[in-house]
């Protein structure tokens, strides 16, 4: 039997939860020898929706997309640093579009075995279930999904990694 996990995808969205998921994924890749890909999706769909709803002006759309690109680069570089510190190779990937669809595309195209995501938002209304992109991705991908919880424990595990 070959390795059960050959490719891990960790989804990064700039939240603490997603950085925590990245730390866990780095540990997992280190233990298993799996290839690790960090994926950030710039939510251009949301920006387009705001322009269509006339909440955003055209120049706001351009400005926010530019800001979000810079944000994506910043967080992917940060996660890269976390991986490099532990000697784990990591591939950075950034795409634009609807978040859950982009995650599904990457899982399919890169033949991912395991998707790692941060802890889901606390559901306080039915609307959250419909709009939480992490949850939609979790339901839509065909591979296994690991939801990372317990920030302190994950941090300890990451720190103790040689």
């Amino acid at each position, binding site marked *: 039997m070959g390795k059960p996990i050959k490719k891990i995808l960790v989804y990064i*969205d*700039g*939240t603490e939860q997603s950085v925590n998921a990245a730390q866990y994924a780095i540990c997992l890749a280190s233990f298993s020898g799996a290839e690790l890909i960090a994926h950030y999706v710039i*939510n251009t769909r*949301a*920006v387009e*929706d*705001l322009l269509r*709803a*006339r*909440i*955003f*002006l055209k120049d706001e759309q351009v400005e*926010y997309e530019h*800001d*979000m690109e810079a*944000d994506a680069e910043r967080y992917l570089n940060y996660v890269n640093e976390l991986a490099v510190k532990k000697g784990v190779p990591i591939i950075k990937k950034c795409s634009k579009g609807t978040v859950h669809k982009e995650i599904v595309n990457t899982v399919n195209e890169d033949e991912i075995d395991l998707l790692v995501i941060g802890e889901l*938002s*606390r559901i*306080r*209304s*039915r*609307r*959250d279930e419909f*709009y*939480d992109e992490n949850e939609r991705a979790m339901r839509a991908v065909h591979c296994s999904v690991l939801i990372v919880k317990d920030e302190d424990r994950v941090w300890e595990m990451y720190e103790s990694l040689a």
Partner: protein
Amino acid sequence: MALIDLIVEKIVKTPLESKDKPDVLRELVRILKDAEEIDDFDSALKAVQNREDKQSTGLEKSIAVPHAKTDAVSSLKLAIGIAPQGIDFDSIDGEPSKLFFLLLAPPNQPGTHVEALAEIAKLARSKAFCKALVSADNAKEVVELMEGG
């Protein structure tokens, strides 16, 4: 952060006291100041006014979404104001605005700002839901409606 996590009674005011657009912007920012969500009232207000000067954020269906990026906040801030009588807000359909969502975000959090605005845009699509919010008797009822929506 989900939009719903920002919604607590202290950031909701119904009914608003203002009668015109400049006053309603001031009253919305004041809600955040009184709730101790912002320190610098003047720069927060200035940021919102500057955005409104470019084009009104008064949408159709009596909803307005004034918003701005500002260093006056370190994380996303939301205030909800309701004016059942309606306030002239230069909205795109020319109708008075009744439901106001003020959103302030720090410049370094574009993703959360966009997602929160998108959530408001989705909420605004439901005419029945917006009508229920406008008819709410108090802040508690607004929070309950948002949570149960």
